[in-house]
């Protein structure tokens, strides 16, 4: 399945897919993400899309993944962070998430980093199962938080 860099023409499809998954339309946000991650600092920011090889107009985009190389935050050496991944609900369990993750891993490796990270809600069972099945394990950091009174 073809995975490539996002193009401006993909954004309406990204918005449609994201709205279907999250039920929260946010077109402005996605155009801004495209500007930041699709057009700027492309050597360390990666916004990739999986295309439908059938090229059907109603589901041209099967999924997308966004990540970037971040360095020295929390004392961490440069590493690739995946911070968004979405797959067309009807097309899940067909290897699309795996293809997207493999593609962005390749981009991170080409950029010279040897580690990839993401963050998943502890009760986010399906994303957890997915990332685990891709060989990701708990990293050396623990996320902490507190309520601000």
């Amino acid at each position: 399945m073809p995975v490539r860099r996002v193009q401006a023409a993909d954004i309406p499809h990204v918005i449609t897919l994201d709205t279907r998954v999250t039920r929260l339309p946010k077109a402005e946000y996605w155009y801004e993400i495209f500007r930041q991650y699709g057009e700027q600092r492309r050597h360390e920011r990666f916004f990739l899309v999986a295309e439908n090889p059938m090229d059907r107009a109603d589901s041209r985009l099967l999924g997308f993944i966004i990540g970037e190389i971040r360095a020295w935050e929390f004392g961490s050496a440069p590493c690739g962070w995946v911070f968004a991944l979405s797959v067309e609900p009807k097309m899940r369990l067909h290897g699309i998430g795996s293809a997207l993750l493999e593609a962005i891993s390749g981009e991170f490796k080409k950029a010279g980093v040897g580690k990839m990270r993401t963050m998943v809600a502890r009760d986010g069972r399906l994303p957890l199962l997915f990332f685990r099945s891709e060989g990701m394990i708990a990293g050396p950091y623990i996320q902490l938080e507190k309520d601000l009174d």
Partner: protein
Amino acid sequence: MKLQISTRLAIFAVLELTAREDRQLSVAEIGEKFGVSSHHLAKVMHVMGRAGLVRSIRGAGGGYQFAGNVRRTTLLDVAQLFEDLSSIERRTEAIDATPEGQTLSEVLNEIDDIARATLGSITIATMRKLIDRRETGRARPRNPPRRTRDASRAPKLKAITLFRGPDQQ
């Protein structure tokens, strides 16, 4: 974290049964592989049979077969047949009602939550993949570590809080 011996046997047995599709093995065969008594293993298999994780095939050449879905069954599904993995208040002594006792309970619950999330995130298929990778790694020397980039050239990047999983609604 320590698992009961029954839990470990159950996990090993499931991994052995799922090493090849439609594999069926006797208790003696599994026991021999891991050097454990057939008596203990038989009890473990019986519990898993009742839970629907394995089925027993009778007759000549019979044995046990995995009856679950390797991509859906997690280590938690197996472990909770033999372990108490709940975070429900386990102690009811007076000291546990004190602020100290309640605070300690919160810490212990946090540990339990992480343990459950970890066991619940690893399917039998994922375990098999990890085992295969380890076996392949033994057979082949690992690649040398990749170089990381020069610190002085590293970009300062802002924190991002967005995350959307592939299956999240």
